[in-house]
C-alpha cells in the first residue's frame, strides 16, 4: 500500500504536460496504485486537453491502415489527402503498372532477341512507339466519365476536376516515365534513341488532354493513338530512316504540339468542370 500522495502542484504540472519525462513516468506508476491521487488528478486536468488527447488516441487506433500504393506515396513525402486522391487513380494501380511493364518488357525483349541489325532496329522502333503511348492510355483512364467510377460524385464536389485530372496526369506521366526509363536501360546499344520517346510521350499526352476538352477522354486518347501509330508507321516505311520521327525535326514538331496543347488546355480548362454532355 502506498504511503505518500502527490501534491496539487505536482499533479497540475503532470496534467498540463509540463512535468519532465522521468518524473512523469514515476508519477504514472504511483497513479496506477493510488486511488486518491487518481481522483485528485481529475480535478486539475483540463477537459479540453483531455478531449484532444482522446481524439488523438481514437484517431491512432481507429484510422484504417491505407493500401500499398497510398502508403508508398506517403513515404515518398506526398501529403495524405493527395495520396488518397492518387490511390483512386485506376492507372496507378499495380495491375495497370504491371501491364505497362509487360508491354515495355516485350518491346525490350524483341529488341534484344533480334539476331540481325534490322531486327534490333525494329525492336527499338516498337519500343519507342510504345513508350511514347503509355502515358496517353494511363491519363485517359485516370479520370472521366466511364473511367472513374466516382466521376459524377467527384464532379458534383467542389474540388476542381481540372486540378484533379492534372494531378493524376502528372502522377501517371511520372510513373510511366520511370518505367520506360528502366526498360530503356535494358535496350541493346544504349544511346540517344533510348530517351527519344520522352518528348513524343509528353506531346501525345498533352494533345490527348487538349482533345479531351471536346471529346470523351477515351475517344480523345484513341484518336491520338491512331494518328500517332499511323504517322510513325508511314514515316518509318516511306524513307530510309526508320527513326526519322524521333530525330530533330520530329522532336521540334512535338515541342510545337506541347505548346499548342497547353494553350488549348489552359483556354478550355473550364470544360472539365461542366460535366458530361450525354
Amino acid at each position, binding site marked *: 500500500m502506498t504511503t505518500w500522495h502527490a501534491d496539487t502542484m505536482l499533479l497540475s504540472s503532470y496534467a498540463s504536460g509540463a512535468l519532465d519525462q522521468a518524473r512523469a513516468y514515476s508519477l504514472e506508476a504511483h497513479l496506477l496504485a493510488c486511488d486518491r491521487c487518481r481522483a485528485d488528478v481529475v480535478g486539475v486536468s483540463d477537459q479540453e486537453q483531455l478531449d484532444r488527447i482522446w481524439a488523438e488516441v481514437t484517431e491512432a487506433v481507429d484510422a484504417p491502415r491505407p493500401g500499398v500504393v497510398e502508403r508508398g506515396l506517403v513515404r515518398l513525402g506526398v501529403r495524405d489527402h493527395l495520396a488518397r486522391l492518387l490511390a483512386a487513380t485506376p492507372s496507378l494501380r499495380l495491375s495497370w503498372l504491371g501491364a505497362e511493364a509487360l508491354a515495355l518488357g516485350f518491346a525490350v525483349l524483341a529488341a534484344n532477341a533480334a539476331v540481325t541489325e534490322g531486327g534490333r532496329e525494329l525492336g527499338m522502333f516498337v519500343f519507342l512507339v510504345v513508350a511514347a503511348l503509355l502515358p496517353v492510355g494511363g491519363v485517359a483512364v485516370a479520370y472521366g466519365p466511364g473511367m472513374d467510377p466516382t466521376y459524377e*460524385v467527384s464532379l458534383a464536389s*467542389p474540388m476542381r476536376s481540372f486540378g484533379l485530372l492534372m494531378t493524376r496526369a502528372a502522377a501517371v506521366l511520372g510513373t510511366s516515365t520511370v518505367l520506360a526509363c528502366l526498360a530503356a536501360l535494358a535496350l541493346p546499344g544504349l544511346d540517344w534513341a533510348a530517351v527519344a520517346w520522352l518528348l513524343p510521350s509528353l506531346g501525345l499526352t498533352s494533345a490527348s488532354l487538349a482533345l479531351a476538352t471536346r471529346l470523351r477522354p477515351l475517344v480523345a486518347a484513341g484518336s491520338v493513338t491512331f494518328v500517332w501509330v499511323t504517322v510513325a508507321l508511314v514515316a518509318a516505311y516511306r524513307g530510309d530512316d526508320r527513326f526519322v520521327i524521333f530525330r530533330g525535326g520530329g522532336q521540334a514538331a512535338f515541342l510545337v504540339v506541347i505548346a499548342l496543347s497547353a494553350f488549348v488546355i489552359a483556354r478550355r480548362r473550364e470544360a472539365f468542370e461542366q*460535366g458530361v454532355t450525354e
Partner: protein
Amino acid sequence: MSIPTVQVSGIEKSFLRTRALAGVTFDADAGITGMLGPNGAGKTTLLRMMATVLAPDAGQLRMLGWDPGKPDERLAIRRRLGYMPQEPGFHRNFTAFEFVDYVAILKEMVDRRARHDEVRRVLELVGLEGVSGRKIKALSGGMRRRVALAQALLGDPDLLVLDEPTAGLDPEQRLRFREIVSERSTDRTVILSTHQTEDVAALCPRVVVMNEGRTLFDGTPKELADVARGRVWLAAERAPDAHLSWRTGDGRHRNIGSAPSGAELVEPTVEDGYLLLVGTKAFDEEAA
C-alpha cells in the same frame, strides 16, 4: 419574399433523338420534395442537372440562388451540395471508411483529424460504423447504398439530391433512411427521386410526378391521393372496364376507375393517385 432553394424553369434536354425533358418547371424549398415517375420519365436527368453534373439544352435552373451555368456560382452550389447518384460508383478496393474519406477530400476537407471525425459521424448515421474497415467489394448492395448515402451527408449540406436512395434497402434500413433524411429536412432542402410511393407518403410534404419529360402533378401527397378519390373500389371481382385492377392479399380486387357491381368505395392512397396519373406504364413497371 425569399428565393426558393431550387428553381427549375422550362428545362429541356435531349440525348441524340430522345427527348428526356420537355419543359419542366417547378420550385422546391426547405423540406423534402419527392420526385415520382416511371423509368424514362426524366427524373434522373433532372436530378443530375440539380447536382450540376449535366447542363440543360434550354431553360433556367437556379440552386441556392445560384446559376450552375456560371463557373463561380457552380462552385458555390457544389460547396453546399450533397449528391447520391442513381448508380453510385465505388473504388471497390477502398474500405467504406477510405471511400467516404476520399469523397470528404473532394469536398475540400483537408484537415485529417477533422475529416476523419466527419467520416465516422456519417458512417454512424447510416449505421455502418461496424463495417467501416471492410472493403467495398465485400459489402452487400444495401450496405453500398448506405455508403453512398453517407458520402452525400458529408458536411451537412444545405441541398441534398438523392436519386433512388432506398432502392435495394430492406424495410428496416428504409425506416432508418427516413429517420436520417427527415431529421435533416427541417431547414434544408432534400430532393428525393424514388419509385416507392410509400416513401413519398411517409416523408414528403410535397410531391412532383413526372412522365415523358413533363411534370404531370405538383402538390402534396394528400392531393396526389385525392386524384383517385371516388375511383378506388374493393370488389370480389376485377371490373372489366377498370383503369387498373389487381388482386390484394385478402383475395379481393382493388379496382381503380369505374365501380364493379357490389364494390366498396375505399380511401385512395398516394399509389392510387400516382397510378391513375401515369397510367399503365407505371403499373407495368410495378408489376415487373
